[in-house]
């Protein structure tokens, strides 16, 4: 039934947006982490979203029927931008010139990203509710 695959598409988006929020939160949490497991400052993470058909229905696909397209987080990449530098000679991680390399995280940017993800999450939740109403109406046909 296509409606269940529509819900699956929306659910995959909920998953992906939640992941996006998690990544943004960990970026904000580590905005000042100057020492990671590799001894380097924290690098900003970013999710890569890609669309993927949710429905394993080759028959409908071959007929050109409306196929639900979901979304997945295909990978989480590290931002290769340069670290920020801050003059703080008393910091234990300061270099010979007294500069500390701090993570390449821009907190306002992460906040905006999080807002966008939260909006998208809400929209997909609304979609799920609307589709659920439709399924409910369909069930009423049997009464």
């Amino acid at each position: 039934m296509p409606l269940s695959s529509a819900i699956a598409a929306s659910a995959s988006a909920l998953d992906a947006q939640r992941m996006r929020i998690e990544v943004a939160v960990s970026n904000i949490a580590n905005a000042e982490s100057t020492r990671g497991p590799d001894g380097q400052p924290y690098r900003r993470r970013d999710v890569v979203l890609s669309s993927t058909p949710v429905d394993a229905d080759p028959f409908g696909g071959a007929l050109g029927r409306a196929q639900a397209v979901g979304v997945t987080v295909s990978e989480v990449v590290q931002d290769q931008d340069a670290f920020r530098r801050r003059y703080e000679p008393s910091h234990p991680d300061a270099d010979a010139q007294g500069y500390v390399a701090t993570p390449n995280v821009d907190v306002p940017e992460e906040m905006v990203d999080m807002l966008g993800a939260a909006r998208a999450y809400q929209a997909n939740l609304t979609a799920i509710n609307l589709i659920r109403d439709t399924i409910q109406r369909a069930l009423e046909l049997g009464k």
Partner: protein
Amino acid sequence: MPEISDAAILSALGRQLNNAVAKQTTAASNLANLDTPGYRTRDVSFDDALDHELGDVRRTNAQHLAAPLGDGAPVEVQGLQSRRDGNNVQLDRELLALSKAAGDFSRAQTALTAKFRLVRYAINEGR
């Protein structure tokens, strides 16, 4: 006056249900890909399919098979503003499409229920 058969009404209503479901499915897919770079808004357009049927293809013999209607494949929507990442999904447009399709489904479902009620009435000899 030619009589419209029950079967024709029922199949038309059934088709309307299917169309509404297809519209909801594509709108849900578009919403899911709200932030996917490069994703283009897709839509199933049954009105276009009908115009195409009426305008270009006419059956010259009643025994010819009609092209399937109401089984529109999703096509890319033209004329939407793209964002910088190549995505052109508009949140309000898709939510509107979802609600509209839900209304269409409701309408057809109500009509079908009424139709079935009449049939049941006849089966029960008016009781």
